[in-house]
C-alpha cells in the first residue's frame, strides 16, 4: 500500500483509490473540481517518487517535465511526495557575482546558482519590508554557472531603483524559486519555434533559445525582439552572434520608432511584422514573454494563425506597485 507524503504528514492510499480520494478520505482538504481530469483544479506537483501512469493526462509537456499531476487521475503504485505547485519554496541567499547595465534601463545581474532551474522559469526576490519582485531567469543551468536576471529599471520601481543605486557585486539577495513552466521541452526536436519577446521579455527567451540549442533542437528558431525604440533593444551583439553560429536561428529586432538607418533593426508594428513573416503558425511552438497585454494579444494572433494552445507557452509580466 503506497504512502503519500504531503505537508509533512504521511497518508496511506488504498489500492485502486485515486490520490485525491485517498487524501480527501483522510480529511486533507486538497483543491479539486470535476474529479474527471478536465478542470485541472487538483493540479499538484510530485517532488519524490514515481509519477503514476494516467496522472498527467491533458497536461502540457512542460508541466509533465516539472512533475505536475492531477490528483484526481493519479493512482499511486509506490510512495510519493507531493506539494502544491506554487507552494512556499525555500528561500536562499544568493550573492551578486556580476552587475552590468545591458542598456540604458536594463540591469544585468549574475547571482550564485543556489538552486537548479529550467531555462525560462522565474524567481522571486524578497527585498526589504515585504517587497517581492519576480524576475525571469535568462541563464541555462546546464551551461551557465550563475543565475542571470535582466532587471528593467522603472522610474518609481521600488526594487529596481534600489538595485540601480545601491546594489553591488558581493551583496546578497534573498531569492525563491524556480517558478513557472514556460520552458523548453525536447518532445518535438523538429518543431519550428517562434520566440517573441518585448523589452525584458527577452530574458526568459534568451535562456529558452540557448537551452533548446543545447538540447539538440533541430527545427528553425525565429526570435523576434520588440521594443518601443532602438534604446530598448539590448543583447543585440550576442543574439546576432548566436544567429551567425547556428544556421537554424534567425533573430529579428522590431521597433515602433526608429532614428538610425541601419538594417538590423526593422521599424514596424510588432503584430503586423509577425503576421507578415509568419502568416501561418500551424505546427509551430510559440513562446511569448513580456507585458501581459502583449502576451494576450500575440497569443490570440498566433493561435488564430494555426498554432495549437498546447504549443503556445507564455510568461506574462505584471506590473507591481
Amino acid at each position: 500500500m503506497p504512502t503519500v507524503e504531503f505537508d509533512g504528514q504521511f497518508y496511506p492510499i488504498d489500492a485502486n483509490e485515486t490520490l485525491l480520494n485517498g487524501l480527501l478520505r483522510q480529511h486533507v482538504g486538497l483543491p479539486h473540481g470535476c474529479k474527471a481530469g478536465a478542470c485541472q483544479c487538483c493540479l499538484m506537483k510530485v517532488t519524490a517518487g514515481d509519477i503514476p501512469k494516467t496522472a498527467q493526462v491533458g497536461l502540457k509537456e512542460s508541466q509533465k517535465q516539472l512533475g505536475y499531476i492531477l490528483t484526481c487521475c493519479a493512482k499511486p503504485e509506490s510512495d510519493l511526495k507531493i506539494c502544491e505547485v506554487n507552494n512556499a519554496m525555500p528561500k536562499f541567499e544568493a550573492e551578486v557575482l556580476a552587475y552590468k547595465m545591458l542598456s540604458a534601463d536594463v540591469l544585468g545581474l549574475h547571482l550564485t546558482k543556489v538552486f537548479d532551474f529550467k531555462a525560462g522559469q522565474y524567481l522571486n526576490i524578497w527585498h526589504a519590508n515585504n517587497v517581492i519582485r519576480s524576475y525571469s531567469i535568462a541563464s541555462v543551468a546546464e551551461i551557465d554557472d550563475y543565475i542571470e536576471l535582466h532587471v528593467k529599471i522603472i522610474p518609481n520601481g521600488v526594487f529596481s531603483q534600489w538595485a540601480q543605486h545601491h546594489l553591488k557585486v558581493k551583496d546578497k539577495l534573498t531569492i525563491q524559486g524556480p517558478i513557472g513552466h514556460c520552458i523548453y521541452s525536447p518532445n518535438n526536436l523538429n518543431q519550428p519555434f517562434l520566440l517573441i519577446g518585448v523589452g525584458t521579455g527577452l530574458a526568459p527567451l534568451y535562456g529558452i533559445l540557448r537551452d533548446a540549442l543545447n538540447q539538440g533542437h533541430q527545427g528553425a528558431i525565429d526570435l523576434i525582439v520588440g521594443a518601443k525604440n532602438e534604446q530598448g533593444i539590448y543583447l543585440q551583439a550576442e543574439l546576432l552572434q548566436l544567429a551567425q553560429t547556428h544556421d537554424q536561428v534567425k533573430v529579428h529586432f522590431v521597433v515602433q520608432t526608429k532614428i538610425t538607418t541601419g538594417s538590423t533593426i526593422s521599424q514596424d508594428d510588432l503584430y503586423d511584422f509577425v503576421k507578415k513573416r509568419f502568416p501561418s503558425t500551424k505546427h509551430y511552438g510559440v513562446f511569448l514573454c513580456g507585458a501581459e497585454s502583449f502576451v494576450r494579444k500575440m497569443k490570440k494572433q498566433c493561435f488564430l494563425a494555426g498554432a495549437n494552445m498546447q504549443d503556445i507557452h507564455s510568461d506574462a509580466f505584471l506590473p507591481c506597485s
Partner: protein
Amino acid sequence: MSLFERIGGAAAVDAAVDIFYRKVLVDDRISHFFDGIDMDAQLVKQKAFLTMAFGGPNSYSGKDMRAAHKHMNLTETHFDAVVENLAETLTELGVASEDISEIAGIAASVKDDVLNR
C-alpha cells in the same frame, strides 16, 4: 462501444478543441464573449465542455453550465452558434454524421441551463 470511445476519447477532445476554439473566436455572433479572457483557462473549460458533449466522463453538470453562463444574457442565436461550430469541427475531423447528431443532441440537452431558462 460508447460514443466517447467510438470517436476516440480524450485524444478526440484534444484534436477537436483547438479547431473548435478557433472557430468560436472568429464567429462574430459569439467571439465578443471571449474578449479579454485568459485563453489557457478557457481552453481547459472548452475541453471539459467537449468531453461532456462527446459523452465522456461527467465533467460538467447542468448546474455548472447554468451558473457559468447565467450572467451573460445568452440567446438562442448564441447557443446555436456554438453547436454549429462544434458540428463543423467534427465534420472537418471526419466524424460520422450519426455521431455528430448524437453529440449535438447532448449539447442540446444543456440548452435550457446555458440560456438560464
